């Protein structure tokens, strides 16, 4: 009798040797299906909807930097045709106005960027223009931050410093209702 009970105990043990194999199988499945793609993009805050169009004609003309894009993806910046590559430098010059020119913005706080495009404008061009304007501002923030604190503007800085710099060069982009000449 005693002999039999020993034999029973041995056969009751489950062999756990294959456990690792099973776990490996699951692990490999998750490794393969995992997508570690971080979504990046240009973050934008849209203005709240209002039924009446904001009237930018009331503003002083020298404070408005108008960028028009037509259905052929050509740019018209303040009445003259411009290339996208030159847009950033022109925007920076307009906002900061280092030479205190009469036709550029009175002060960075009063500067307004006005974008207008056509319904036929390619999204790629639209985003490029938006990106250049944002890049102009972030370069200005960087310069200001370097001058004052000796480091680049980044999200790691304390909120107070970021607010101070941003309030010196507030990012104001106004987007007008697009024209409709070239929609497919």
């Amino acid at each position, binding site marked *: 009798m005693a002999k039999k009970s020993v034999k029973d105990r041995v056969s009751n043990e489950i062999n756990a040797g294959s*456990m*690792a194999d099973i776990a490996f199988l699951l*692990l490999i499945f998750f490794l393969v299906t*995992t997508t570690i793609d971080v979504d990046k*993009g*240009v973050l934008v805050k849209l203005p709240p*909807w209002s039924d009446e169009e904001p009237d930018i004609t009331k503003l002083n003309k020298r404070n408005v930097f108008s960028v028009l894009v037509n259905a052929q993806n050509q740019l018209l910046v303040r009445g003259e045709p411009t290339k996208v590559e030159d847009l950033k430098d022109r925007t920076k010059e307009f906002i900061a106005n280092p030479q205190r020119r009469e036709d550029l913005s009175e002060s960075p706080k009063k500067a307004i960027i006005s974008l207008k495009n056509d319904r036929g404008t390619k*999204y790629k061009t639209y*985003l490029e223009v938006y990106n250049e304007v944002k890049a102009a501002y972030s370069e200005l923030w960087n310069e200001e931050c370097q001058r004052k604190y000796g480091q680049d503007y980044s999200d790691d800085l304390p909120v107070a410093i970021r607010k101070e710099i941003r309030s010196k060069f507030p990012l104001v982009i106004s987007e007008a209702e697009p024209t409709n000449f070239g*929609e497919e």
Partner: protein
Amino acid sequence: MSKFSDKGGKEPPKVSTASLPDIVFMLLFFFMVTTVLRDAELKVAVSVPQATELTKLEQKSLVHYLYVGRPTQKYQSLYGTRPTLQLGDKISGIEDIPIFIEKHKIKVSESQHGRITSSLRVDGDVTMGIVQDIKTKLRKSNQLRVNYSAKPRQD
């Protein structure tokens, strides 16, 4: 000397593999927790444009995606070739956006509603017409945090 050299020295001791399953399980759980399964099959072709001023989107639970592009070859017979909007995993019209946003809001706690972001994954070659309509709809439904999805620019 012979006192210390016992017969066990002849063959090396076996490494115990008993803890191997535990290690593997630990890795497994790590991947199970961090995995975000691809939630939507893309029915439109989207190749996002390049940009430099990029922000990384944190907290995927607060982000919903709006895909805009031309239907892929497989779906062209069904939906045509004009650029369309895809919400979740189905092709939708612009008028479906408010419901789509509401559905997402239900899943998010009230205090975080202001941080919900719409990520627009728009094909670079799509014209602004449809994008403008989407933007207007988003503004009307008071969903103002928008991300124009883009790839980092390689120079």
